[in-house]
């Protein structure tokens, strides 16, 4: 991987029968690594042989991003326990693969204060307690493994608990662990932050991962985000970690993805 800001792409947009094949394709498009997707029900742990082989074959996989139906901030205690267990698996596996961390939102698609019934069943104080507990547990595990649990703020329509980088900063300060970091996503920031550049600078010391997609959730360059400003801002906070493309695509992957690394590199 490059010394500065590896540009990664998520595995599901790459065609291929194996991670090695996908990596070959990603490399030919100018990417430096692959972001894994972590499904639930133990299925990520079940991929361990495949992942070990890919790592042995030199596929860089610095991060895994959760893909489940329930999350660490679930209202239901059982689901919450399961989400924490699944994330713990992801942390252990990404550590074994030599990666940096596993990323999760507080929740996704569970509740929005902007949609009926508007009032969630838990108070904000209870939400905070639940998240401090879950992230504290995962943060301690991550610290012991030398990786990070990466909390991703989502926009108001997808989650009601952690929408802005400052929400995540507040939680991380309560938890007090360096192994709990923010996974900042440009698409959500574009909706939630009054000034994404200023927000990134304020949250700078807490940023552990970055996901990039454009204002319309398509690949960078297909919307109206200011990528020059994005690059200058990441440099200004000294962020040298990966930038993973998590987006829908404006056309066929082979047509649109090769333009992404040069676009971002120009400004990094």
């Amino acid at each position: 991987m490059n010394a500065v800001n590896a540009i990664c792409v998520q595995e599901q947009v790459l065609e291929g029968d194996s991670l090695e094949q996908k990596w070959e394709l990603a490399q030919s498009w100018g990417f430096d690594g692959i972001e894994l997707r972590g499904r639930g029900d133990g299925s990520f742990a079940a991929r361990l042989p495949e992942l070990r082989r890919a790592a042995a074959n030199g596929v860089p996989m610095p991060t895994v991003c959760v893909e489940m139906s329930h999350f660490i901030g679930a209202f239901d205690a059982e689901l919450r326990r399961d989400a924490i267990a699944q994330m713990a698996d992801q942390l252990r596996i990404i550590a074994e693969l030599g990666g940096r961390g596993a990323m999760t939102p507080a929740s996704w698609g569970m509740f929005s204060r902007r949609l009926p019934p508007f009032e969630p069943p838990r108070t904000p104080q209870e939400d905070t307690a639940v998240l401090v507990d879950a992230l504290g547990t995962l943060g301690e595990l991550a610290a012991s493994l030398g990786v990070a649990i990466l909390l991703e703020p989502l926009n108001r329509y997808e989650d009601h608990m952690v929408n802005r980088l400052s929400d995540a900063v507040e939680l991380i300060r309560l938890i007090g662990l360096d192994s709990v970091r923010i996974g900042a996503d440009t698409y959500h920031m574009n909706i939630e932050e009054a000034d994404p550049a200023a927000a990134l600078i304020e949250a700078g010391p807490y940023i552990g991962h970055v996901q990039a997609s454009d204002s319309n959730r398509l690949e960078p360059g297909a919307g109206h985000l200011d990528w020059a400003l994005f690059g200058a801002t990441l440099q200004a906070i000294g962020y040298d970690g990966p930038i993973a493309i998590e987006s829908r695509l404006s056309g066929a992957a082979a047509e649109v993805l090769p333009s992404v690394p040069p676009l971002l590199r120009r400004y990094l």
Partner: protein
Amino acid sequence: MSDLAIAAATRVLARNWRGSYTVPAAGLYPHQWSWDSAFIAIGLRHISPRRAQQELDTIFSAQWGDGRLPQIVFNPRLDVQYSPGAAFWRSDLIPNSPPVPTSGLIQPPNHALAALLVHQADPEASDRRRFLPRAYDRLRAWHGYLARRRTAASGLVHVVHPWESGMDNSPYWDAPLAAIGDTFGEDIPRPDLDHADASHRPSNAEYGKYLSLAARYRDHDCDDRDDGHPFVLEDPAVNALYARSEWALGQIAELLGHDPAPHVERARAITASLGSLWVPELGCYVARDVVSGQLQRFRTVSGVAPLLIPDLPHTAELLATLEGEHFALGRAALVPSHDLTAPTFDSARYWRGPSWFNTAWLIAEALHERGFAEEARGLASRMADLGLEHDFPEYVDPHSGEPRGTLRFSWTAALSLDLYERLHTRGETL
């Protein structure tokens, strides 16, 4: 300066951004200032060409019907933090004013130069957003205002208030202000003193006259027809920037497929007219008080700024003046705002001695353009280092380089960044 410094400058500019423009500094200056914005855009173009365009678009959006670009565009929510503010100007009651509250005065015309540099930072992004044609129309109207309403028989543009020069308490204004009896009768609000040492800022007596002049100009609807206006001055830096910006407009015209000749002709005419401000025994240009007809015989940084103009007849003399005991180029910190040897020199007080980063940038740019490459690089490099070392101060002591005024000053960060990028990283020449 280093990559760390680029990061530090970027953080200042990101933090001082207010959604569509950059404040000169958080606290002391809560609104948008005209020539600050143009200087800031020159640095912002390295961070975000789009944001740099927006910075200029925002000041252009406050253009008056007569073409003037106002000195200040007020943020009405912060009107108590700066004096005189929107409530003093009441620009909504003045004919030809824009929908947003502004000051009625102007500032030096550095905007065309900035617009060209912003365009050049990313011509594709500029073309895609139609930045240059839009800017060209605004800039032509702006320079048209200067030509029509502010140019006297001398062929030079005049300012009607010290603030319009951008160098508020320059010794140039001492005699003209002393000749004015009027002062502002009411209590003089000084919110600036909450943020800065009173000994570094203009005095209360000066402020009283500033307000009185501004009120008179306002009460004449800013129409430039007040024959008895007591302060009418021709300033060398204002005219040098006007000429240099006409050259830039000529380049912009060419890029857009228009005829550059009218701009080149105007630039040459201003250059010729500047001859009447040249004082051979001082080795620099000076200001003229149009009311008294007197030249104001001081060496100031304004008087060496015409080095920015191509085909100037006194380039060699100006370089000698800069390098001599009066400005000590290469030995003093940056370029002192006033003659180091003059009895009127004051190392701490605003434009009567301290070195400023915008004028250092102008002189570095001028040295570069005139082919004094080594001098340009030396000044640029000292400026970038000094900016970073002291957290981008508003200005510095010209002897020691110690910071003065407020910190994290936007144009200091922007222009230090610009010179650093041009010296080291992006392959532009300097």
